[in-house]
Each structure stands twice: as structure tokens, then as C-alpha cells.
């Protein structure tokens, strides 16, 4: 059998040669068999394969073996790193890379200047061996979508460590600072958000993750201007959250033509198509969430936008739906009262108020008979729950909590009108202001050493992270004027966390245990404290954000103080918050908002951690992404099982058979089973409690997913009512599981069950079978 080499010549396939390359990738990694990879690679070749195919095939082979032994992930990652090196050119140095990247117009002049000044120091600081920290999936993601490519050949021209250095240089004022920041991100202590990784150091440094807009002008011109703005923002890879409440409802009068309006739905259909048409620089699909307050008379049709059936012109398959719910609505649900629906032009004060003023305005409009329709609050709430159960969409966010606890809303009329695409950003918007947020996340996995959490290191990294997030505000490229002026006025940033689950695994904590909650609180408190300290320090040098005097800081209120009247349980405090509030009143603050816990879907996989604040979804699961499907196995579990001699092919099959749950596997000790509960097995009540407690240190919000295996209206209505009472500001997806499953193809099929067994099963499940009489 022959392979065709890169220069076109043919060469006999030799196992020794393949084995040599594989051996190098396996060096120092236990429990992996180089020979196995080499043999399997050869069996997948056909005569006339190219050497590139051969390389890819040996990587693919190692990836496949991950299902049996997770260490193959590291092997595959090394082979991939080597193949990137080949693609870039084996002899390329950092200086050559700079030259080539700038020739292709990729690098900004400032970065080029900074790097060329002292490229030797930089070259010396770059540690390619840190590629070893990547799991395969993380590196693959980086290679497929983050590394710079040649504009025509599409070949990779950047190595992973160069990319991280490019990101660091893009945010730095001098080389020393850049190297310090490079060390932090290349050791996965902290990771900037995806847009920053994509664009920092390039000619179009659009580094913000999210934009929040409101369709403030209820006119054709206003609506289409917002849609156009969204297209521009989306092009540069930002996610969108758009408030549609100000647009008049179906049946309202249009003065110009004396006709009646068709409401927001037809415009949302246009918006849906527009979002779909603009992809983010070819890198990911555009995405938007649309927000509506439940008093808007189009609310019922709005809730159906994601349904599969019904008139196509009333369906938006790409938009995410979110609800911006005032407390009054929840109180009416609780007391089982009526709820009035209005068209906004008939009830303009509802757009300008929150909290008690909103309640007053709402009730007086009701008395004046301005409502278009009355419905039962519970009936509407039930339909919200239905939408959540059926589509996972229709995210429940609480308008009053979001506003009463926001530092930006001290002056009347400044209102947070929606959250963003992932429900962790809460910032003021208006017709003049498009809110922007730059994000980054601390990787908590990296701070645990031998069951001890390193709070000191955490404080140091937070200091650097905030400094660099603040830089983004000035360096950032803003696609619209509204975004630019708003961001310079408020200078908000969003520092988040990821790998909380990894941190608990390393500490040996059960996710929903009291000690886990305590640690989680202490971590969030430390991050918020140091973030404020840093921001105040920068303010002393460079000045506060221009709107400081209009913020709640001016009266000495931090999130900790704002939380007290709004959440039933306060966590234990470790720092002197009143002193800090006074310092800030005196010295000012550089950033109006500092903390936002984002979902971290992509950056968590780059650093190989579990996402955000979430428990593991399963011990075995696959990630579906644009680059392919990837198996993710819980390495911590397998290490524990190996230590007990329990990791066998039979055990593996058992775990897959039980959908990645270990709760009913008797061979595994109970305390280990508890440690590896999946998100379906962790109490959602505790998850909400943990989020609520952490809220005292989160001045924006958190992307809180909730999980119910078998949701029904009763469970959902109880759960979201509880979340509201706990003072949660926003929730994100409701996740549930498919009712019927794909047949397991890789584990043995169980024997056919007898009729009696089948009946027994259905009896255990009375909900789906009322038939068993």
C-alpha cells in the first residue's frame, strides 16, 4: 500500500514510521498504546491516501480511543499541535509569524510595533510546551476557529501560544505587561471571552461579547434602524439581546395611515431572517434573544414563536425568547388574580418605570380602562411554563430585581430594559445607548492544590483580569456610535467564573453540599472584592467612569448592600464591605459594573473545564459543535475508579447504559456516587439557593440554567416561583431530556423483556400510562 506525499511522490506505507510519530505523542502519558493507534491507523488507510490524510487519521484514531481511555485525549492533542506546527512551517519563529501575519493585514500596527520593539524577549517568554495543557477538544476548537489563517489558502499561520501572545499584546501597554498576562492565560488561570480571543491584536479589535438594544422608537424607521444596527453588531461576533416591548401591539392604531397595527410578530419574523443571514465573520452563526414584558398585548403570540406547528409567518426558528417580568405579575400569579394587557403607546409610563412606580402606573392604567385585554395571571404563567418545557426558551428574567440592584439605575428614567443573549448582563439601554459588555472568566479548576483553594492567587489574577477588561473599553472597535458612547460613559465589564464543578471535584465536595456552597460563596466574594478594589485603584489614576455621580456608588451602595433587602439569605462575609463602599465613594470607580457569570461554553472547552457554575451534565457526554462531535468523559471519576480497581470495560458499558449516571451502580461506593451526581441528580432547589447566595457578589447576573428530566407545569411553576422569591435576577435555559432515546449501538442489547416486565415498567410510570387498571 502507498501514500502520496505532500510533493506528489508515492511512498510505501511503513508501520515503523507511523509508530515512531505516534510514540513521540505518547511519551510520558500512562495507559496509552502507541502500537494500537498505529495499527488502527493503517487499517483505515486505502491505497493512494495522502500523508495529510494519514496524519488526520492517526489523530482521529486516538480521538476514538478516548472512549476507552481518556488519556488518549492528550495524545491526540499533541499530534494535533505537531500537525499545526507542520502547517505553519516547522522553522518559523515568532518574528517570522509577525511579519507574515502583518503582510496579510491581520495584525494591528500598534501590536506589530510593540512586538517588533522587543521580539527577542517575547520569543523567550513563549512556552510552546504549554500546548500540553490542552485536551484534544480544546485545541481542536482553537485550531478550527481561533488561529489566524492565510486569507487565500486558508492554511493556519499561527501557533496556539503565538495566538495567546497576540491576545496579550493586543491589550497591553508594554511588553512586560504582555508577558505577565500571557503567563496567566497560557496557564489557563483566566481566559478572555471568544470575541477577544478572535480579535485582540488584529486590525478590527471588536472584543465585546454582548450588546443590548431597545427598539426605542416605535416607528418603521426606529424598528428598521434597530434591525440594521443588530446586523452590524452581529457581523463582528457579538450576541444580541433586544427589548421589543416599546413597539405597539396588534390592533393598535397607526396614526399616519389610520390603519391598525399587526403588532410585533411580523417584525420579529423580519428580525429572525436578518439574524440568520448575518454570520459572525464565518466563524459562528449570528444569535439574538428578544425580550418582552408580559403586559404587552402580543405576549401570547410571542410565547408561540418557537413552536413547531402553526402558521410559518408567526414562527421565528432562530430567535431566542426571553421574558422581562415585573414583580407585580408574580404577585398576581400568587394571588390568582387577573392580569391586564396593554399596548405600550397607550401606557407609556410602563416603559419608564420599575418597582413601586411601575406598580402604581400599571394599576392606574387598569383603572382608566386602558387595557386591551384581561387574562388570568396564572393562565398566562402556565403558558410561559409550557413554552419553557417544550422549547427550553422563554427565559424568565425579573425586571424589578434587575433594576433595584443595578448600580446604573439611581436616576429616574435610566432603566435596564432587558438582559442579553445569555441572561448574565444587566445594563441600561435607551435610544441613545446600546449597552456593551466585555467578558472574561476565571478558571477555578486552576486554583485547587491538594484539596486547598488558593484565594491569594485568585485575588492577584482578578486584579490583572479587571485591568485588562478595562483596557478593552478603550481599545475596542465599536460597530455603532450608540455602542461606543454608552460603553465610554459606563465602562462596564463582566468578570465571570468557570470550572466550579472541577474545583469541587478536586476538593472532593458533593455539588449540593453545605461545604460546596460555602466555598462557592467565598470564591465569589473574593472575586467581587478584588474586582472593586482594582477598579477603584484604576479610577484613582485614570478617573472614574463618567456617569459615576449618577450611580448608586455615589451613595455608597455596593451589590452586597443592595442585596440585603432583596434576598432572603445572605452568605457569611469575609471582608469589610462598608469600608470598601466608603473608599469607593471617596476614590471613585473605573467601571460601573464588574461581575457577570457567563455560560462560557467555548472558552471552558478550550481550557478543558466544566462550564461556568454548572454541575456536570453526565459523566459521559458528547459535545456537538461546528467542528464535530466530541466525547467528554469525566476524568476525575475515572481516576477515582482506577484507584479502586473498578475501571473495567464492563464498568464503562454500565455507565453508558445508565446514561452516564453512576447513582445505581452498586459496585461504586456511595460517597463516590454522591460526588459524581449529574445535573439531573443535583437538587435544583440547592442550585437556585447557591445562585441566590452568590448574587450578593454579582452586580450584573449569572446565566443560570435549570434542569428537569421530566418537566411538568406543576414542577416548573413551583421552581420559578421559588427562584423569584429567592431574589434570583435572571434564569437561562430550562433543559430537559428527550422522551425516547436512540438505541445504544455500542453496548450489548438487553434481552427482550417479557410482557409482565413491560407492564411492571409502565405501572411505575403512571404519568404516561393511565391505562394500567
Amino acid at each position, binding site marked *: 500500500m502507498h501514500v502520496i506525499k505532500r510533493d506528489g511522490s508515492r511512498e510505501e506505507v511503513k508501520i515503523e514510521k507511523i509508530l515512531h510519530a505516534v510514540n513521540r505523542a505518547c511519551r510520558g502519558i500512562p495507559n496509552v498504546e502507541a502500537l494500537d493507534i498505529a495499527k488502527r491507523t493503517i487499517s483505515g488507510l486505502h491505497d493512494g491516501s495522502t500523508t495529510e490524510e494519514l496524519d488526520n487519521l492517526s489523530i482521529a484514531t486516538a480521538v476514538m480511543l478516548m472512549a476507552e481511555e481518556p488519556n488518549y485525549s492528550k495524545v491526540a492533542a499533541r499530534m494535533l499541535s505537531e500537525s499545526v506546527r507542520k502547517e505553519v512551517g516547522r522553522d518559523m519563529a515568532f518574528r517570522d509569524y509577525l511579519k507574515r501575519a502583518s503582510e496579510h493585514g491581520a495584525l494591528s500596527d500598534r501590536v506589530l510595533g510593540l512586538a517588533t520593539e522587543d521580539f527577542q524577549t517575547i520569543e523567550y517568554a513563549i512556552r510552546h510546551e504549554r500546548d500540553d495543557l490542552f485536551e484534544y477538544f480544546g485545541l481542536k476548537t482553537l485550531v478550527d476557529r481561533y488561529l489566524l489563517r492565510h486569507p487565500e489558502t486558508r492554511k493556519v499561520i499561527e501557533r496556539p501560544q503565538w495566538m495567546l501572545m497576540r491576545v496579550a499584546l493586543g491589550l497591553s501597554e508594554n511588553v512586560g505587561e504582555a508577558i505577565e498576562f500571557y503567563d496567566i492565560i497560557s496557564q489557563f488561570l483566566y481566559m478572555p471571552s471568544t470575541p477577544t480571543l478572535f480579535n485582540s491584536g488584529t486590525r478590527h479589535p471588536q472584543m465585546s461579547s454582548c450588546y443590548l438594544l431597545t427598539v426605542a422608537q416605535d416607528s418603521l424607521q426606529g424598528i428598521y434602524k434597530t434591525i440594521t444596527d443588530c446586523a452590524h453588531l452581529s457581523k463582528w461576533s457579538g450576541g444580541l439581546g433586544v427589548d421589543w416591548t416599546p413597539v405597539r401591539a396588534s390592533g393598535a392604531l397607526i396614526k399616519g395611515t389610520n390603519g391598525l397595527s399587526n403588532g410585533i410578530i411580523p417584525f420579529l419574523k423580519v428580525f429572525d431572517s436578518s439574524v440568520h443571514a448575518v454570520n459572525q465573520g464565518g466563524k459562528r452563526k449570528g444569535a439574538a434573544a428578544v425580550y418582552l414584558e408580559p403586559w404587552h398585548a402580543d405576549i401570547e403570540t410571542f410565547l408561540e414563536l418557537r413552536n413547531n406547528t402553526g402558521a410559518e409567518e408567526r414562527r421565528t426558528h432562530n430567535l431566542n425568547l426571553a421574558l422581562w417580568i415585573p414583580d407585580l405579575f408574580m404577585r398576581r400569579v400568587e394571588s390568582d388574580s387577573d392580569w391586564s394587557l396593554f399596548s405600550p403607546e397607550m401606557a407609556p409610563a410602563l416603559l419608564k418605570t420599575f418597582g413601586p412606580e411601575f406598580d402604581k402606573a400599571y394599576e392606574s392604567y387598569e383603572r382608566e380602562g386602558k387595557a386591551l385585554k384581561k387574562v388570568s395571571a396564572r393562565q398566562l404563567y402556565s403558558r410561559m411554563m409550557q413554552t419553557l418545557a417544550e422549547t427550553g426558551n422563554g427565559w424568565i428574567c425579573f425586571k424589578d430585581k434587575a433594576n433595584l440592584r443595578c448600580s446604573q439605575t439611581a436616576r429616574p428614567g435610566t432603566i435596564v430594559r432587558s438582559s442579553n443573549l445569555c441572561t448574565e448582563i444587566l445594563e441600561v439601554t435607551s435610544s441613545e445607548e446600546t449597552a456593551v459588555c466585555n467578558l472574561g472568566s476565571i478558571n477555578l479548576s486552576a486554583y485547587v492544590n491538594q484539596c486547598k483553594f488558593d484565594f491569594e492567587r485568585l485575588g492577584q489574577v482578578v486584579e490583572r483580569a479587571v485591568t485588562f477588561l478595562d483596557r478593552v473599553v478603550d481599545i475596542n472597535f465599536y460597530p455603532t456610535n450608540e455602542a461606543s458612547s454608552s460603553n465610554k460613559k459606563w465602562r462596564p465589564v463582566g468578570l465571570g467564573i468557570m470550572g466550579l464543578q472541577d474545583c469541587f471535584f478536586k476538593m472532593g465536595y458533593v455539588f449540593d453540599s453545605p461545604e460546596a456552597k460555602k466555598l462557592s460563596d467565598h470564591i465569589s466574594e473574593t472575586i467581587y472584592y478584588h474586582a472593586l478594589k482594582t477598579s477603584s485603584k484604576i479610577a484613582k489614576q485614570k478617573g472614574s467612569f463618567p456617569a459615576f455621580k449618577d450611580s448608586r456608588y455615589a451613595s455608597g451602595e455596593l451589590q452586597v448592600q443592595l442585596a440585603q433587602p432583596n434576598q432572603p439569605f445572605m452568605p457569611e462575609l469575609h471582608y469589610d464591605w462598608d469600608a470598601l463602599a466608603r473608599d469607593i465613594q471617596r476614590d471613585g470607580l473605573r467601571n460601573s459594573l464588574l461581575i457577570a457569570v457567563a455560560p462560557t461554553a467555548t472558552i471552558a472547552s478550550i481550557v478543558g473545564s466544566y462550564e461556568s457554575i454548572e454541575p456536570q451534565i453526565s459523566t459521559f457526554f458528547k459535545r*456537538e459543535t461546528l467542528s464535530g462531535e466530541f466525547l467528554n468523559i469525566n476524568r476525575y471519576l475515572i481516576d477515582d475508579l482506577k484507584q479502586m480497581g473498578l475501571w473495567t470495560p464492563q464498568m464503562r458499558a454500565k455507565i453508558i447504559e445508565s446514561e452516564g449516571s453512576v447513582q445505581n451502580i452498586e459496585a461504586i461506593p456511595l460517597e463516590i456516587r454522591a460526588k459524581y451526581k449529574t445535573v439531573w441528580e443535583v437538587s435544583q432547589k440547592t442550585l437556585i439557593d447557591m445562585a441566590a447566595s452568590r448574587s450578593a457578589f454579582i452586580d450584573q447576573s449569572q446565566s443560570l440554567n435549570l434542569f428537569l428530566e421530566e418537566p411538568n407545569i406543576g*414542577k416548573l411553576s413551583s421552581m420559578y416561583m421559588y427562584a423569584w422569591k429567592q431574589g434570583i435576577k435572571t434564569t437561562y435555559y430550562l433543559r430537559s431530556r428527550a422522551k425516547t432515546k436512540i438505541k445504544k449501538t455500542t453496548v450489548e442489547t438487553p434481552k427482550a423483556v417479557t410482557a409482565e416486565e413491560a407492564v411492571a415498567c409502565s405501572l411505575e410510570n403512571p404519568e404516561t400510562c393511565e391505562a394500567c387498571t
Partner: protein
Amino acid sequence: MILNTELNLTLRPMQYPQFFKLYKDSIKNIWTTDELDFSIDFEHLRDKMSPKEAHLIKRLVAFFATADNLVAHNLVLNFYKHINSPEYRMFLGKQLFDEMLHVETYLLLVDNYLPDPVERSEAFDAYRSIPSVKLKADFCFKYMDSINELDKLDTDQKKRQFVQNLICFAACVEGLFFFGSFAYVYFLRNKGLLPGLAAATNWVFRDETTHIDAAMSAIQVIREEYPHLFDEQLRKATENMIDEAIEVELAFCSDALSLGVSGISPNMMKDYLMYCADNRLVQLGYPKKYLTKNPFPFMVLQDVQSLTNFFEKRVTEYQKGFSATKQAVVFDEAF
């Protein structure tokens, strides 16, 4: 008894609650083709496919173009007629809907993948004109036609013939032909190609799995009620039928992979089909025969939960069929 020839319309007392449960479970998984998105596939087909892979795709599409219609046809003509359980007929109603959805899915796929109208009509004609696809269709027709004439299952021989038809469609058509084709799709997906097709396949795969389970549990009931039907003759016939199905699918494989595609070979496919066939035999209550190992570790990915990055892909794991009433709202249920 489930093969009685006198029409049974009685749901109370319920004789076969297990079928009713299958029906109830399956209606919670309703999806529509509006949720599919082939736009990235379109870019891949334009920019990323080698001619070798493009050939494989063309063959796959040709098979998919008519396969579900064939299954649907047999469903109506044979399953519905002879499985005399109103509970099972409820399930068949849903299955028929699934098949139509799959037909529509593949129609959409063909329209997207083959912009040229001539190629499109060729794909739909493949079951007559492309030999390797025709072989598969002929295999189905053979077991379909053999009982077309049967109006009433009034002898054991006729009952046996019908059981064979059931086994053919559950174990061979859905359980091998489809499983084989899905493996190619996931193989490509594993290389990062054609996410739209893979997403559509996830939905279709889930439905097919339910269909196989349902047919297998019908066979199980027949086995309990008419043990004497399951004699040596039927066992032999079943084995032969499965052998034949593997052979037919392998002929398709050598055609689909005739240009050579790195990472997947007819030998691997053979092992895989035999591995699936063993699983089917066990489901039918027979011992394993081929004893091969699964050569496609990427199929493990289909066995585990999925965590989708919402920026990138639509999530397929939701349930349908909730009714929202004011009465259902409570605040004290455990969650």
C-alpha cells in the same frame, strides 16, 4: 390474541398497555423539518468535500430518497392490517407520521444537496437505476410482495410469513440498512463535516430506534402467544434473511466507498453490520452468531448525552405535549 383475524377495536380493558406506553412516549418527541438547517452543509459540499466523499454522499442521498417511503408502504399494507391490537395501531399512526417526516426531511436534503434537477430526479429513481441501491429495494420488495396476497392470517404458515415480514423491516431494513447509513453520516460528522445532515440524522435515528423497539416488542408478544410459530424453520429463515441483508448492505458499501475514503473501509463496515446483526438476534431471542466487535468508536458518541453549544446548533432534546391550564399551576411541588 394479537394475530386474531377478527378486527379488535377495544381499548378497555387494555390488553397491551406496553404498546400504549410506546405511543404516549413517542408523541412527546415530535419535531418538524422547520427545525433543520442545512446551510452549513451547503458550504461544506461546495468547499470542503473530496470527490471520494462526494461520491459517498451521493449514494447515501440516493438511498435516503426513497427508503422511508418504502417502510411507510409496508407499514400500511402489512403491519397495520395484521397486528390486531388497537394500542399498536395507535403507535403505527405515529410511526406513519414519523416516516412521512423522514420522507420530507430527505426531500429537503435532496433539494439542498443536489441543485441540479436532473441529478435530483436520478436520486429518486435510484431504487430502480443504481444497482447497489436497487439491491436494497429489491430485498424489501421480496419480503413485502411475499405477503401482499395475504388477506387473513388464518394458517400458521401465513402467520409465519407475516412474522418474517416484521423481522425483515425491524431487524434488517430499520435495524441494518438504516444503521449502516447512519454510521457513514456520523463518520463524516466525526470529521467535522455536514452538521445539518448529522442533526437531521439524530432525530431520525431516535425515531427509528423507537420503531425497532416497538416491532421487537410486537414480535415478543407473538412469540409468547404463539410459541409454536417460532420453530427451527423460522429461525433458519431469519438467519438467512439477516445474512442476505448484510450482503446487500455490503454491496452498497463497496459502491459507496469505491473511490476509497480514509478512515472507513468495507471490512470495517462488515464488522459493524455483523455487530448490529448480533444485537438484533439477541433482541429476537436468538443467540449471537457473528461475534464481531464494533469497529466504529465514534458510534459511542451516539450513546451518550449531548451538550450542545447553543450558539452553534439547535438543541434536539426537548419534549412536546404539555397542556397549560391555570389549574396546573402550583407552588409546592418538589423540583
